[in-house]
Structures are given as C-alpha cells and as structure tokens.
C-alpha cells in the first residue's frame, strides 16, 4: 500500500469526519442560538439577543418541577440499573453456563426494539393490572430498556477480565464474597462507572418511553415535545441548551475521572 495514497485517504476521511461532526452539532448550535433570542417567536438572523429566558428557566416553578421529575427518575434508574447490570454482565461475559448464548440474545432484544411500541405495550400492561402510571412506572419502563444497555457496557469491560485473577484470590484463601469485593469489583469499576453514567443520561433524555408511562407527571423531554407541537415558547430552546450542556459536562467529566484515576494508579 503506497504511503502517499494512505495519506490522501486519511486527509479526505478527516474532512469527512469533520463534516459529520458539524452535521451532528448543527441542530444543537441552532438550539443554543435560539435560547438567546429575546423575541417570542424564532427568526433568523436573530434580531435581539438576551439571556432573559435563562432567568425565566431558573426561576420558573413548573420548570423546577419538571427538573425534579426527570432527576428522580434518572437517579432511581441509575442506582437500580447499575446493580442489575453488574450481575447481568457477569452472567453475560464472565461465567460459563448452559443457556448463556440464549441469555445473551434475550438481553439484547429490548435494545433492538422500537421504544414507542414498548412504551405503549407497558401502558397496556399497567392498565390491565390496574396500575395508574406516574413517575415510578416510568422508572420501571426505563429500566427495561436501559439495564440491557448498561449490561452490554459492563460486559465489554468484563470480557477483558482474566478469570485466573478470581481463581488465584480464591486459592489464596478468600471467600466468595471476598473475591467479589477484593478482585472483581475493583477491576470492573470503570465499566460500572460508564454503565451508571449511560444509565443516567439515557434516562434523563428519554422521550418515547416516558411519553407513555409517566401518566400525569412530566419529564423535561415530554414537556419539550408538547411545547414544540403546540404552545411554543423560547423556554424550549433554553431548556434544550441547558440539558445539552449538562449532558456534555457529565460525559466529559466522567471520562476525565476515568482517565485521571487510571493515571494515578500507575
């Protein structure tokens, strides 16, 4: 393979990558722009810039309620998801047992699935059980979709886990719980941390499942959608920009934590 042609291909692909990045972030940029518009209705070029909608967002009671609903759901989902996914990942990647292959495929099913249909199915299920949907039923709905994803994330970490480490610890006198605590968890924690991060963010930004299973409560994405379709206010782009900023901060911060801790260790 001539070096020169690889160099050209590399440069072309870098340009292409740049285009894709711009493509991905363009709508986010538009939303951020719109949040600074003073006018009630959006027009470009923006006639007047203002941050008043940000002040409104922070002071509005209804926004605070939305925030609380989204946060409660996301936090609860994260905690439960991490526990279930940790053990689920051990079963997925770490242990050899009969039925593992089938289990792997079943775990993936909720991911390869249209969320709106899942949400509706859950709604039907709740009503046939006589359960009235509210933010707690939304937690359950999120878990069905998010726990498999978190399981996958932790599994990827678990695959590179040397089984001999656990055996060695066992051989050296550790009980099964001590093995879990001293060896398995410390080595798998970056995967668990990523799983927790993903769980939180995916729950926070989820719309299709929330739409059908929160009942009277409302999350931020639901509110955004409702306002987009009818009753537009510039609070929409404002909340959108804030949410994006929050997600980016969490992700970059989480990544930085992992890199830092890894460097500290060695």
């Amino acid at each position, binding site marked *: 393979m001539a070096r020169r042609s690889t160099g050209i291909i590399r440069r072309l692909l870098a340009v292409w990558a740049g285009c894709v990045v711009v493509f991905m972030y363009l709508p986010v940029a538009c939303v951020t722009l719109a949040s600074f518009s003073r006018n009630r209705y959006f027009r470009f070029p923006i006639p007047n810039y203002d941050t008043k909608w940000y002040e409104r967002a922070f002071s509005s009671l209804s926004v605070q309620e939305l925030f609380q609903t989204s946060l409660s759901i996301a936090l609860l989902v994260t905690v439960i998801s991490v526990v279930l996914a940790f053990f689920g990942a051990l079963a997925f990647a770490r242990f050899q047992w009969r039925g593992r292959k089938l289990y792997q495929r079943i775990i993936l099913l909720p991911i390869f699935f249209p969320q709106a249909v899942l949400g509706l199915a859950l709604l039907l299920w709740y009503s046939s059980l006589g359960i009235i949907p509210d933010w707690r039923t939304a937690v359950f709905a999120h878990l069905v979709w998010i726990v498999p994803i978190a399981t996958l994330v932790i599994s990827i970490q678990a695959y590179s886990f040397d089984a001999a480490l656990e055996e060695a*610890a066992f*051989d*050296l006198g550790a009980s099964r719980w001590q093995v879990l605590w001293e060896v398995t968890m410390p080595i798998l924690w970056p995967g668990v941390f990523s799983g927790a991060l993903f769980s939180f963010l995916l729950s926070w930004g989820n719309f299709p499942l929330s739409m059908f299973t929160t009942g009277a409560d409302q999350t931020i994405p639901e509110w955004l959608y409702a306002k987009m379709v009818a009753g537009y206010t510039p609070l929409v782009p404002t909340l959108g920009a804030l949410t994006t900023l929050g997600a980016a901060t969490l992700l970059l911060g989480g990544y930085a934590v992992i890199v830092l801790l890894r460097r500290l260790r*060695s």
Partner: protein
Amino acid sequence: MANEPILCLAGITKRFGPLTAVNQIDLDIHDGEFFTVVGPSGSGKTTLLRMLAGMEQPSAGDILLRGNRINDIPANRRPTCMVFQSLALFPHRSVGQNIEFSLKMKGIDGAERRRRCEQLLEQLRLPLDYYSKSVTQCSGGERQRVALARALAFDPEILFFDEPLSAIDYRLRKTLEKELKDIHRETGKTFVYITHSLEEAMVMSDRIGILDRGRLIQVGTPDEIYNHPANKFVSQFMGEVNMIEVSIEADGRLVSQDLPMALAGPDTGIANAHGYLVIRPESMRFLGSGEEADNRVEGKLYNIYSLGSRIQYQVRVGEQVFLVEKLREQRFHGELDDIVAIGWDRHDSIVVSD
C-alpha cells in the same frame, strides 16, 4: 528428604461429557520433592493440576493429603497454593499488597503482614522498596518472583505450578528454571509442576510423570526416563532420537523392514512382538575404513545442522533417516551428498514398545 507420600492420587478420573480428560491416575507424590507432570497439549495435565488444587472436582477417585481425603475441601481451604500460567497478579494492587493477600484473607494485621512480606521479598531477591511498586511496572522475571512470593506467603504445604514459564523467552526461562530449583531447595516444600517441555522438567525435577491423553505412562527420575523410556511416545517426547521400527522374531532377533540387514540389538527377553529400536544421536558414530561397530549402515549425508556446541548430521539410508551428533571439536569432515558409513553398538540402543 523424607520419602513418605504427602499427596496420594487413587483412581483419579475427570470426564467432561463424553470426553475423558484424565483417566484412572494412581500416583504418590513424596514430601518435599519436585515432581513434574509432563505431557503435550490436550494430555490432561492442566485438568489434573486443577483437581489437586481444588478448582475442579474429580469425576471419580480420591485425593489424599497426608492420608486425609480432601476431594470435598474447596481451594480456599486447602493448605496448597497455585502459581498460574498467566501469573494472575492483581493489577490493581501493588507488589506488597499482592504478596500479602493470603495473609489479609486470614485476618493477620498490617504490621505482621508487612514483616512477612519483606522477608519474602528478600528471599526472592527483590528489592525492599518494591513493596509499594505497581505490578504492571515489573519486568517478566520480577513478576514471576512476585507470583512465587505471593504463593509462599501463607506457608502452604504444596505449591502447584501451571506452566508458568511457557510464555517467556528462552534466556529468561533458563535463568528462572534454575532459580525455581534453588528456591525449592531453600524452602523444602513440595512442588508439583506441569509443563509440555520434557527438557524443562529434566532440569528442575526430582521425579517426572509422563501423561499421554489422560493416562500416566511412566513415572521416574530424570535419569530413569532418559535411559529407559517406557514406550515410543516417551522416547519421542524426549526430543530427537533415531527410531527404527522392528519386529522381534520368535528367537529374539530384531528384524527391520526398512534396513535390509540383521540388527544387533539388546537382549529384550521378548519374542514375537512389535517395537522400536531407539538409538541416541550422540551414540552414533562415523565409521572410517577399517573401523567397526555392532551395526553398520551406509547412506548419503543429506544435511548438517549446527547446534551450538554440537553438530548434527542427517544421513539417509534408503527410507530411514539417521541423526548423528558430534561435539564441535570432533566434527566429521564430509561434504553434503557424500556416501558415508555410520554405526552403533548394541549396548547403546534400547527397544521400546508402542
């Protein structure tokens, strides 16, 4: 070294579904000896070791430690410790924390653990300041020593070794083999080692057991195995030897299909059987005019191999290939494609069965 058995295996068998990995092994391992189980991949040696260490359960048979049956005792309660092939050092812990691990599991306090750890660092010729060093920064040889120190820490009665040197380059391996044997001498513990290299086993072991497809073929000291291999498998396992397929006649004579001559071989005391005549390359010699030997053949010098201090000659006699080894100072002065005469004496050969 006392000769009482510390570990007795009686009828040890392991089946995985239809596959029998380990088949009816009876073996006594003596207190304080360095015993090596040698076998090719798939011979069952790893499975056997894991059963002794407590990681697997035998399908049948008993394992007795000083007369007590330990089949049902799990690995973490056996007074034994294993050094793994990948060493299995905890990457998230320092050298010191690795070594102390078994002591921590026992509940021994920090100061005592540290004291014992420093003792081991010294014994294994590691610098004391390695205590807080990360294991990922240690060299290959250092990691081996850390793994060994970790295994020795809680003073086990038997140490098991699962081919720990197989992934290391030649020079380091040679050094570590000797170090391992030295440490065996210093600690006086029983070492049970497995490897696929008979050469490695010969360097370190007091006794060797040869495993082929789950069965124990031969057990003996390195000398015994070297001089009296039990069968064709063991002979070939020892490296390059000359092997002539023979049938033993009713009167005890040896007849070969490939060599059209009467073979003068050792007295086997058997008649009407099939076997192999084995001659070591170093026992073969080139016969000049007038020189004699019990057996003499002529063939073409096909190739010459330089093996460092020795030179190996490949001589083809019809379908049979002979290897002759000579020390470099006593090299044979011949050219490729020359017709040469080689020979050996009957007392330098043995006959083995299939």
